[in-house]
């Protein structure tokens, strides 16, 4: 960790505008927000989904359903000794009658999304699943593509992207940690 350079790529104000734009885009694609369920992937997808739901309600007057999914039990690397903390999954709406929009902070390899889709399908069969992310940093390892993207941030696989949100971290910002070349 020492020797990393930290760059703030996106600040508080830009995060706010980016989230607002995603909310507009979701509305554009869904005439009836009451048939949409925003499902945040723990941890930082949850506050993002909450914000999006509030914004969509503000713009359209219709509040979409809100849920959360925990993927700890669906990860493909439990066997590799990661012991993820198991959190709650909460999907308080009829999945068979909703377009699920999965919400996460950073899209990277796509493995988290694969796990989230598996988790959702153990609860029911939504007619459609879409994906909204604040940051797409590339380097996919699975054929997964986001439907709504806040920012495309091309990075090296050695870099790390960290989204910090007021609800979880006290501030809205997107940071890039770059390995220092020696």
């Amino acid at each position: 960790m020492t020797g990393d350079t930290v760059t703030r790529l996106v600040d508080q104000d830009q995060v706010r505008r980016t989230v607002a734009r995603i909310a507009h885009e979701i509305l554009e694609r869904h005439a009836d927000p009451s048939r949409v369920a925003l499902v945040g992937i723990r941890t930082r997808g949850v506050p993002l989904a909450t914000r999006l739901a509030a914004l969509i309600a503000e713009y359209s007057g219709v509040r979409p359903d809100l849920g959360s999914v925990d993927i700890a039990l669906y990860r493909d690397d439990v066997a590799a000794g990661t012991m993820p903390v198991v959190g709650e999954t909460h999907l308080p709406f009829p999945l068979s009658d909703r377009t699920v929009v999965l919400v996460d902070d950073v899209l990277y390899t796509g493995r988290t999304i694969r796990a989230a889709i598996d988790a959702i399908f153990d609860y029911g069969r939504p007619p459609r699943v879409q994906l909204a992310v604040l940051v797409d940093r590339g380097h996919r390892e699975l054929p997964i593509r986001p439907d709504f993207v806040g920012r495309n941030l091309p990075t090296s696989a050695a870099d790390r992207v960290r989204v910090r949100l007021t609800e979880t971290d006290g501030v809205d910002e997107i940071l890039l940690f770059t390995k220092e070349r020696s």
Partner: protein
Amino acid sequence: MSARRSLIGIGDLSRDDITRLLDLGERFAEVMSRDIKKVPTLRGRTIINLFFESSTRTATSFELAGKRLSADVINVKASGSSVEKGETLKDTILTLAAYKPDVLVIRHAAAGAVAAAARYTDAAVVNAGDGKHEHPTQALLDLYTLRKTMGRLEGLHVAFVGDVLHSRVARSGAIALQTMGAEVSFIAPPTLLPRGSAEGLGVHTSYDIADIADADVVYALRMQHERMGEGGFVPSLREYATQYGIGHHRLREGQRVMHAGPMNRGVEITDQLADDPTALVTAQVEGGMVVRMAVLYDLLSDPQAVRSADVVSHMVAA
């Protein structure tokens, strides 16, 4: 493969460990409430349940716990296996270990046998009851049930009543409850109350059944005929039932009753009380399932990795 952890005695677990396992159990209880009661978490893992002693609840729930987590589960019973042909514990373990299981769940009639068995395998070993010694997952499911129904463990008073002498349930239970800040009493006839070890555990002891009045929860212990031989521990079961059997007549309002099963109805617990919906017996069975899922999940992941992950996020936050 890194060295695996095991669960041999409940004393191996700290207060934090126990809390983590009970919290995990609650998550798995949610999984059990779904239409699809199975998660892919332990896919590709192998669990061998090795039971040298009979069991319904523990064996079934360990098997189901493994299957709900998508592990491959194999059950080996002493009857019908090479154990009947005189194979030693060591050789049985070495044989099964050669199949490279990730977890060996072992029940044995001899105290200390599970700890001994753990020396012959790299697999994580879970004690599913070793003689009069310990039954750590029973203690965990009892704590889980108590926390869920009473809302707390700290300050709770649990009285174990009856055959304390032969009871691994009382022993592991007492250790676990005290770790969590609960108070424990052993109440039994003198012949069934091991004074020395009870005092070593730091529990209250009494021969007087009236002392259950102080307890929030009365835990009726099974009379273990199979471990008594011709011992003459009690004059007769009927007399024991009259003097120490738990029934509605002995309980005050709000007192809850537990029993680890199998029950001797009409001996340590009356028929009517066993069927009373306020008795926690069925809740204990349900708790056993999810707590055993928690233990398997916990053993098959590496806490070291969590610690380093915490460090990373901590450093980023700093």
